[in-house]
């Protein structure tokens, strides 16, 4: 019982950053109606920029975090300009395939610049775990959870309380109608893309700081986690993305404890499969589903 609760605590902490990854993913999907496979690799580029800033200049965590976020956002805009802006409306497959090509390109670029496989990443917070009766909570996990939930709340505020958020939700609801009410869709889309990649950057920084290392494979890892959490939570939903991430984190922590690390990923894929088969709209109903059905 103690193990079960401890695993759940650990899972929720890690899952909060999965939730952030899914949040960035779902915003891009909602606004563009297209899957951006280069999402994780954009985050990875940010991570590499962070590690360079750390290793070369001995920067502190906040500076490294800023570098990761800026790097991810710039890489995100690069992907948008290359894979999404030039593609005609409806050419979703072309965008997805080209975002796959850019994934490979970004991964190779990272390997060329930093040829050693693994690089150090600064820790988030050090210090003894907090003891709560039989349970222990890592300080860096706590920082991760706090940052992730805070950022998710901020994203929700921007979406529902600002003019930019209104524009985003209008595009998500119906792109043609968004044009018709005067939303400058061509201006908003790259901004949304950069913002979503920056959210991924925050998630990437938190995960890397907990792992204290980065490899070129981090891009694929981030895309996979974000994608699975997004599908579990429900495409296009902010609370869904966070919930999906938390659930994925808990499932992984439990299966790792009881079955070992090899089985852990298998269980995650099985849960994704189960959701796709039984409840394809995910935990929380989708923002975009109703409108895509009507269109």
């Amino acid at each position, binding site marked *: 019982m103690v193990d079960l609760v401890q695993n759940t605590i650990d899972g929720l902490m890690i899952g909060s950053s999965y939730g952030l990854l899914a949040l960035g993913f779902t915003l891009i999907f909602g606004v563009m109606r297209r899957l951006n496979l280069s999402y994780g690799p954009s985050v990875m580029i940010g991570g590499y920029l962070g590690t360079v800033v750390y290793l070369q200049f001995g920067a502190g965590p906040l500076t490294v975090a800023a570098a990761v976020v800026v790097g991810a956002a710039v890489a995100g805009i690069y992907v948008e300009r290359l894979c999404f802006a030039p593609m005609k409306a409806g050419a979703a497959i072309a965008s997805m395939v080209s975002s796959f090509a850019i994934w490979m390109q970004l991964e190779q670029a990272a390997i060329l610049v930093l040829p050693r496989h693994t690089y150090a990443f600064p820790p988030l917070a050090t210090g003894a775990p907090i003891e709560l009766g039989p349970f222990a909570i890592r300080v860096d996990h706590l920082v991760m959870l706090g940052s992730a939930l805070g950022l998710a709340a901020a994203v929700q505020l921007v979406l529902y309380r600002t003019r930019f958020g209104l524009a985003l939700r*209008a595009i998500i609801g119906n792109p043609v109608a968004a044009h018709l009410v005067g939303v400058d869709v*061509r201006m908003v889309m790259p901004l949304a893309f950069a913002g979503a990649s920056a959210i991924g950057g925050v998630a990437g920084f938190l995960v890397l700081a907990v792992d204290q290392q980065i490899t070129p494979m981090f891009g694929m890892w981030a895309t996979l986690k974000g994608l699975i959490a997004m599908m579990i939570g429900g495409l296009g939903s902010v609370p869904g993305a966070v919930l999906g991430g938390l659930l994925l984190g808990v499932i992984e922590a439990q299966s790792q404890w009881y079955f070992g690390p090899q089985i852990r990923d298998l269980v995650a894929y099985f849960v994704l499969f189960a959701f796709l088969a039984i409840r394809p709209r995910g935990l929380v109903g989708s923002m975009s589903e109703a409108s895509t059905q009507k269109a």
Partner: protein
Amino acid sequence: MFEVSDIVAAYGKIEALKGVSLKVESGRITCLLGPNGAGKTTLMMTIAGILQPRRGSIRLEGAELAGLSPARIVSRGVALVPENRLVFPEMSVRENLLAGAYQRRDRAGIDSDIERMYARFPRLKERRDQMAGTLSGGEQQMLAVARALMSRPRLLLMDEPSLGLAPLIVAEIFDIIAELNRDGTTIFLVEQNAHMALKVAHQFFLMEQGRITFSGTPGQLAEDEVIQRAYLGTRRAVG
């Protein structure tokens, strides 16, 4: 005055508009009738800037609109109530109205305009916090009209406002159109329901296969003939 001259628009190689010219008098209701596939919706989308014309000009009070982005066209005073309404389904009625005022920055004016919309469309007021996707077809049509009015347009374009609505609701929508026009809104309307359209319109155009084939005032042509040409096209009418 609103004037479209010699507009050509195409989807790939297929020309949907083959040189359309027409004039809409300020303060009037002008109606565009024609069979399916004549290019009526294409013309509306081109005026709104969703489609870019290959050539030709679109002028509102002398100012050129062709080539501008949809957002600029809205800020110049043209709003389109699109075919199938296209409300934002996951936004509340109130948020849909706010979105309609997206180009405006006058917070107080927007709030008072929302109140004016609630006064004109009491059912929208009742459902102000309800998601627009849960409204009935007629209510969604009213919301789409109110949303377009929130940009304070000088010219209101409406594409098939009666589409898919019950006869009683259609009558209500046309009452609203006449009322808006009495309050001074210039309206350019595409309609399948020729009978209703001819009752409110001051002027009408017939469009067939991407061209304007007739223009006049209701009563100038027998309604039977208008309806026949609007639904079936000229060639069937002759044969």
